[in-house]
């Protein structure tokens, strides 16, 4: 506990000083090396996702249901989440990123695949064992207007985790704990008896975060936590989340469609398309050295709030819409919108792996990408 406090204090003190600036300048000269070092020095993953699949059956008939197909929301996803890091997951609507969140929270039952939390497959757990694991994996929801029960006070909302897991905090101490949590997320502890609708969107999201923190979890899954907030409030919440991560050594799985925010907060980023992972790597690898055409198109489509930075950028405008996940294209799922697609793409499904041509290089393009014709392309104009 003392250690934790010291750490918290250190974070507060470390306002960007001259020495920090110099340090970060120095690091840019060897940024490639640093990025490579980071790749090695990550330690044991806290969460390992292996071939996770979720198909929602499409049925017909009322009394006697028969299955006529399935929406392949998540179709074989694998990734690792390390202690204290933020893994960003980006993708367009319907790519399955929110379903991944629900699967990890065991709010939905996986069709196939495993999710190992500290070596234990949580998709196979139930009852008491599942209850115990849930303490350590918490979630922050997208919509601060619907994720808080309008009939409960803020105190009841943040205190509910303690009622469900009474072993965490004895009854007498709960009110104090709730007030401390309000303080930690930057809300006045006196607001404990207020109702959610008396708060603004940003404040509500702080309440949602406080609820997520109550059980002192190791992993927080954030499903579009700031997309419903106003621009000026988004920054406040992002900063709060980063502060809390340092303070409590949290691991975040940060799901969002806003690529700029994901880059800001993430250490590593995974790009999803139609239930598959298209590309995964460090933030620098994905944003500055993307090799998958979808990632490149996605990045180039992001409107940049700077008309001058925009001039130099190449814009790739994809044609058409995302196909239905009930009937995804054969082979590579992106081929119907891809400008590089060839015969091979419709026949052979590309695997998520470091492309052959980069495998032996120490370039930042050497990260996992599921494309037959993976090729580096700087679309952001950073390099």
């Amino acid at each position, binding site marked *: *506990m003392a250690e*934790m*406090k010291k750490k*918290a*204090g250190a*974070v*507060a003190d470390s306002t960007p000083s001259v020495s920090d600036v110099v340090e970060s300048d120095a690091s840019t000269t060897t940024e490639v090396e640093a990025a490579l070092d980071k790749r090695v020095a990550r330690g044991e993953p806290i969460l390992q996702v292996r071939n996770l699949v979720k198909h929602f059956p499409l049925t017909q008939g009322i*009394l006697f249901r028969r299955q006529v197909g399935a929406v392949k929301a998540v179709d074989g996803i694998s990734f690792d989440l390390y202690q204290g890091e933020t893994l960003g997951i980006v993708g367009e609507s319907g790519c399955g990123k929110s379903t991944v969140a*629900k699967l990890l929270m065991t*709010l939905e039952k996986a069709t196939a695949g495993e999710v190992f939390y500290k070596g234990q497959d949580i998709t196979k757990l139930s009852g008491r064992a*599942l*209850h115990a694991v*849930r*303490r350590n994996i*918490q*979630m922050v*929801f997208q*919509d601060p207007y*619907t*994720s*808080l*029960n*309008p*009939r*409960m*006070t803020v105190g009841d909302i943040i205190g*509910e*985790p303690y*009622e*469900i*897991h009474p072993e*965490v*905090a004895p009854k007498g*101490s709960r009110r*104090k*704990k709730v007030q*401390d*949590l309000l*303080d*930690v997320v*930057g*809300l*006045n*502890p006196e607001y404990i*008896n207020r*109702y959610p*609708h*008396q*708060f*603004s969107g940003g*404040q509500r999201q702080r309440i*949602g975060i406080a*609820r997520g*923190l*109550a*059980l*002192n979890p190791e992993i927080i899954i954030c499903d579009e936590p700031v997309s419903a907030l106003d621009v000026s409030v988004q920054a*406040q919440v992002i900063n709060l989340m980063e*502060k809390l991560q340092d*303070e409590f050594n949290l691991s975040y799985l940060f799901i969002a469609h806003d690529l700029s925010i994901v880059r800001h907060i993430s250490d590593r980023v995974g790009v999803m398309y139609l239930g598959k992972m298209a590309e995964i790597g460090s933030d620098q690898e994905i944003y500055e050295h993307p090799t998958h055409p979808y990632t490149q198109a996605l990045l180039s489509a992001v409107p940049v709030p700077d008309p001058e930075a925009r001039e130099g950028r190449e814009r790739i405008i994809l044609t058409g819409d995302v196909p239905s996940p009930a009937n995804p294209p054969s082979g590579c799922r992106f081929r119907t919108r891809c400008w590089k697609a060839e015969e091979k793409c419709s026949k052979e499904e590309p695997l998520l792996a470091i492309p052959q041509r980069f495998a032996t290089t120490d370039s930042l393009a050497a990260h996992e990408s599921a494309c037959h014709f993976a090729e580096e392309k700087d679309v952001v104009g950073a390099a």
Partner: protein
Amino acid sequence: MSDTSGITSPSHSSPAGDYAAKEEVARQSGTAPQPSEPKKTQASSLWANAWRDLRRRPVFIVSGIIIVLLIVIAIAPSLFTSTNPKPGDLAHFMQKPKLGHFFEADWFGYDGQGRSIYARVIYGARASMTVGVFATLFVTVAGGLIGILAGYFGGWVDALLSRLTDIFFGIPLLLGSLVMLQAFTGRTAWTVALALGVLGWTQVARVMRGSVITVKQADYVQAARALGAGNGRIIFKHVLPNAIAPVIVVATIALGMYISAEATLSYMGIGIQNGISWGADISTASSQIRNSLHVLLFPAGFLTVTVLAFIMLGDAVRDALDPKLR
């Protein structure tokens, strides 16, 4: 649980950033007590808001006063009249009302058996209110329970309960209760309430089911589940409080309906036996309607006003609980 104490660090050791953020919130709230809701509504919830809204509606006030008055009459009719409603004195046969004689036996005149119509109307309120209130209670509890189970658990539970609801929904309320009540001898207000309740729960069940299905998908229910909350907790803490509003509305309106159903059954001679009821009196009066209207007018008038009061109340509550209509 030392690992949890990290977050409960006393506020003096919390990072400076907290204070900045908190202060700004405090300052904000200094100029406007609550950023999103300026009024000093300390514990304003949907219900508090609805109550605030209701108090300003004349429809609610009028119907509320009528209903409170009727409840008092039903509980303590002797407060309103000292006349015994049962024995008749043929000397008063069909006497016309004396409208100046407030609260006296001959205020509303006398019926064909020389009984005080005022006393009968006052004593008849109990039967109507008993049937209305208890049939509604039964319907709300039974229908509510079935609706919650069907809506919350879905799947085969829903399929089974929904079919059951459909079957009962197909039985006409009046015809069904008529047949059912035939089986009883010595029918009281309670038996009538039970018969109406057994046939009437379907509407509440349907409304509750739909409401529960909507609420069940809300993020805060998902959030509770993510915390590891059990079904009981989710139903009673999260689903029910948020799903019950439409049921209350339906129930209030149904209450008026049951009162008129009781009158109809009594009119048909299949309602309460040996009791005093507006419906029974209307039935008796209908044969004399041509020469003396007052015998019909007063029980029918009380019945209409009562039913109307409950329906108006239901309407007002519905409007107040629906934020979109405000």
